[in-house]
């Protein structure tokens, strides 16, 4: 079959699809450094300066760390979420399928970073808290374990979660047309772990409870942890939408058409 000059030119213009993995890899490296560094700091400073909240050294090595976390996290939250909103695409009705595919893939890749951050909060630092409580009696709400778990790991995944939510509703037409309830649960459910921290600390302070981990006071964390199951709903929504989106940029031979 003859190939015209125009067809050759058109075929050359369609660049192969590239996954933009840089943000995901950078995100995971940054998180690994933050969480790994925090764990190193615990090993170094917990036994020497973290046993007594009335010790001036506790103030120096732990409460300074705590206040730094709070300031940085609040700043980052408003910076990231504000950036997503202020730089939003104001013409989502005109987004081409190829561009939508690029954005959707980038967003899904960043969900990996969100899940990675949730691992540190839900697994690594959470269970570690049990062993510290069983070794050193809690004297205030601020312990070397809590300062890394409640005031660092949880805010980190909350910041990432809200940033991704705002990315979705400001750059992805699929999530902007209607709000996905599953996505709201995936972001807001784990966010509710933070208010549960307040109730948890109030309960421990008020009732001076024993520290076994299954106390009903802790079940709020479990309940809101369950909402991450809705992540399967988000992924299935994405995959169902892919069935609509991909045929707009691919032909049946699997070649890109735009």
């Amino acid at each position, binding site marked *: 079959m003859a190939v015209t000059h125009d067809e050759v030119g058109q075929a050359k213009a369609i660049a192969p699809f590239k996954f933009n993995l840089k943000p995901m890899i950078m995100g995971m490296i940054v998180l690994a450094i933050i969480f790994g560094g925090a764990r190193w700091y615990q090993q170094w400073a917990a036994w020497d300066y973290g046993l007594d909240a009335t010790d001036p050294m506790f103030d120096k090595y732990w409460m300074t760390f705590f206040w730094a976390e709070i300031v940085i996290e609040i700043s980052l939250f408003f910076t990231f979420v504000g950036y997503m909103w202020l730089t939003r695409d104001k013409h989502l*009705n005109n987004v081409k399928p190829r561009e939508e595919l690029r954005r959707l893939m980038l967003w899904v890749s960043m969900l990996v970073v969100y899940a990675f951050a*949730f691992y540190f909060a839900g697994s690594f630092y959470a269970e570690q808290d049990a062993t510290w409580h069983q070794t050193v*009696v809690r004297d205030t709400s601020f312990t070397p374990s809590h300062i890394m778990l409640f005031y660092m790991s949880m805010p980190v995944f909350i910041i990432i979660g809200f940033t991704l939510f705002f990315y979705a509703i400001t750059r992805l037409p699929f999530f902007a047309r209607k709000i996905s309830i599953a996505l709201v649960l995936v972001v807001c459910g784990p966010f509710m772990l933070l208010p549960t921290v307040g109730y948890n600390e109030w309960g421990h302070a008020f009732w001076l409870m024993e520290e076994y*981990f299954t106390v009903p006071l802790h079940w709020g964390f479990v309940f809101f942890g369950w909402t991450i199951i809705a992540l*399967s709903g988000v992924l299935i929504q994405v995959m169902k939408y892919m069935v609509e989106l991909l045929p707009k940029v691919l032909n049946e031979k*699997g070649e890109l058409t735009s």
Partner: protein
Amino acid sequence: MKLTTNEATLLSAVTTPNSEAARIARGLDMFVVAILFFAIIAAFHIHIMLTVGDWDFWVDWKDRMYWVTATPMLLIFIPAALSYPFMMRFGLPIAGTLCAFCLVLGEWISRIVGFHLWTYFPYSMIWPAIVLPGLMLMDLVLLLSRNLFITSIFGGSAVAFAFAPANWPILAPYHEPVVHMGQLVNVADMIGYSFTRTATPEYLRFIERGTLRTFGGESTLISTGFSGFVCMILFFVWWKIGEWLTNLGTIPNVMKKHVGLGDDDDEK
């Protein structure tokens, strides 16, 4: 089942070897696998640590009453919920096995890095329970039957029935009797006495009460039987919860006019 035009196009595209479509689909698959891997570790581990908790942390809490009864019941929540999307949407009866693998991985990382390297508890005291056999059996029943009711009855109960036997080989040496200061205890108790936990309740009050032992001395069997019965119900309930969470719909976006979308864009 008849495919839509879009589905037929996509199926043809992604099954073409070395095509762009196949590469994009494979890339998406890899993202999904990574997301599920980390999310399942986190979700299942936080659930288990705060519901089974100390019964899983410490060897002297691994008793014949609460540990054997409660662990399988609480173990089945997340795998049953995830069995729905895995089986019904991806055709993969692997939720139980995947959850078990992720949980044990998360637990071992925590026990090594937190319990052992930070607070110096010995591994003999802090090993997590073995949960893989029961959850694999649950998957097997789902694979063979492809039926919710059959899996609830036989797969759900398998989680409980396999739990004590799977753990017995590693737990048995800790139940050897020891006389300590004139009291008969076991090796697990001795380890517990040696490594003081400053904030647990005193041992006997919570770990084991005597009444169950009056049932012919078959505490483990009775606990397992009851747990198995509850697991049957819980598998069904949590499958339905998984179905509900997977099929959540949408709500109107009142802010969409700020991104250039109008009411007529809903159906696009």
